[in-house]
């Protein structure tokens, strides 16, 4: 499908891509990875001729691409960039069908195609086709960026850190979605990333680059098991260890004695309890110690004249974790929802502890510096 022969790119005397030989097979998901500045983007952009090589040749299906008209070439190659680059003056419909418009396809066909594509990523066409990019979330925008590249059904797609600017959760869901999509579409994909997890997750074959050269190329398994040298081992080894980080269960990191109160107790008692124990929230439990919710100092301050009993100020909408679950789960809930703590309940719904920011810091510290510090 794609073949690099001794491709070199020189910028002011520096060989940023150096005698690159590389073959990409049809239907292959190839991931280019390596430290920042190693020449990944340059390599990618030479394929759609946004950058011309200084030396060497690139062949697509046997044809030397330097003999093709760059404009025609690019219309046959999908292109997704990290900064998304949706045209702000165009609707989603117009953004997605831009290549089809350049190819002068009729309106009806374009509309149908956009509907089909939007549906493929679970975005309701009726809702989104006529919106503008600034009316979409970051994750939705990059979905559109991917659809734009798919619209004309090009056999080859280039992607330059397409999910790099997204938050971790959105990134993961887009990776999964794209992987599913690829399993259906069987495109040939050249994908640039510096995220090892992403490479391991998506790649059929990984090409690890350094200083413009290929250090090792092969299926993920092979690079993990038989690293060609220390650089590869280091690049992957670091990651492997990270994946094996051992985090305790919530039971080990939680504070086992949160300050509790009963729903029928008085508001004044609650205020007094907070003052004595230096806390800004109380956890409300019934006679059987079952967790009902919380009251915060804000609601007490606001409502103490109106309310008499704690139950009137009860906030039941509090995320909890189950005893025995991984500490990571609790930490993730706290980071994602910006919470200061997560109550831990057992299977009977009884409050057994509280994971706080402090427990999180201690647990992470014990991972970094070894055990013995954990709370």
């Amino acid at each position, binding site marked *: 499908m794609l073949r690099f022969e001794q491709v070199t790119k020189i910028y002011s005397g520096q060989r940023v891509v150096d005698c690159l030989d590389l073959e990409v097979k049809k239907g292959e998901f190839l991931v280019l990875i390596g430290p920042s500045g190693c020449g990944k983007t340059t390599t990618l952009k030479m394929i*759609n001729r*946004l950058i011309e090589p200084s030396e060497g040749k690139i062949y697509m299906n046997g044809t030397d691409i330097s003999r093709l008209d760059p*404009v*025609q*070439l*690019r*219309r046959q190659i999908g*292109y997704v*960039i990290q*900064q*998304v*680059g*949706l*045209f*702000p*003056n*165009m*609707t989603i419909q117009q953004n997605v069908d*831009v*290549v089809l418009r*350049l190819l002068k396809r009729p309106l009806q066909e374009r509309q149908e195609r956009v509907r089909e594509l939007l549906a493929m990523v679970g975005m309701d066409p009726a809702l989104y086709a006529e919106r*503008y*990019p*600034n*009316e979409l979330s970051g994750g939705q925008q990059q979905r559109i960026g991917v659809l*734009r590249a798919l619209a004309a059904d090009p056999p080859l797609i280039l992607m330059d850190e397409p999910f790099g600017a997204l938050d971790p959760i959105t990134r993961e869901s887009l990776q999964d979605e794209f992987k599913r999509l690829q399993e259906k579409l069987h495109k040939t994909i050249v994908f640039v990333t510096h995220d090892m997890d992403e490479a391991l997750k998506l790649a059929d074959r990984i090409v690890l680059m350094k200083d413009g050269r290929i250090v090792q190329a092969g299926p993920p398994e092979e690079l993990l098991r038989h690293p060609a040298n220390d650089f590869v081992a280091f690049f992957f080894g670091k990651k492997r260890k990270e994946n094996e980080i051992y985090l305790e269960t919530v039971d080990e990191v939680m504070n086992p004695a949160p300050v509790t109160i009963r729903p029928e107790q008085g508001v004044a008692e609650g205020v007094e309890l907070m003052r004595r124990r230096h806390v800004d929230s109380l956890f409300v439990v019934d006679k059987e110690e079952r967790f009902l919710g919380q009251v915060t100092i804000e609601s007490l301050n606001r409502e103490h004249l109106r309310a008499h009993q704690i139950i009137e100020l009860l906030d039941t909408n509090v995320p909890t974790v189950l005893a025995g679950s991984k500490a990571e789960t609790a930490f993730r809930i706290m980071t994602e929802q910006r919470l200061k703590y997560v109550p831990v309940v057992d299977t009977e719904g009884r409050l057994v502890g509280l994971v706080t920011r402090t427990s999180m810091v201690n647990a992470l510290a014990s991972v970094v510096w070894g055990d013995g510090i954990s709370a």
Partner: protein
Amino acid sequence: MKPLLILALEHLYLATAGVFLATLVGVPLGILLTHYRRLAPVVFSLTEMVQTVPSLGLLALLLFVFGLGNKTLIAGLLIYSLLPIVRNTYTGIRSIRPELIEAGKGMGMTRLQLLTQVELPIALPVVLGGIRVALITAIGISTIGVVIGTGGLGQPIWRGIQMENQGMIIQGAATAAALAILAEILLTALEQRITPRGLRKRKAT
């Protein structure tokens, strides 16, 4: 002397004619400069220099070429309007996020398609801003056209000065000011109208 309304229309005609011609020259020139960036500073300092020439002096010079009358004034206005229009066209296009240009190219747009589908639509409000500034300046400058024999609102002002008739001066000046304000309001509204919906600042919800 002609009625005030006629003078005002004459005045508006002169100012718009100058700015219109400047737009015809300035927008393509601004676009061209985005492709020959090294020329941009040269062109800008040249047009800036021209702008520092007092309008009366410039008109006097142009008098040699075009003679008395509207042509000279319109030529002068053209020259004056060039700077804001060229500069806004240039900066409007230059300030487009580079990834949009890259995306456009990467999708397989030709240079012309990139210009008409991406660069110009996005830069349009800024370009129009330059035209607005030029037009308001031109409405002001047009009042001195009277000394080289043009019509417009310079006439009552000039006449008023000669006859020491303050009322007349104020009439002319106030009408010119009203024209400028009207132009400002109309073009600002137009700017907002033509800003693609996706580029408008969203109201906080």
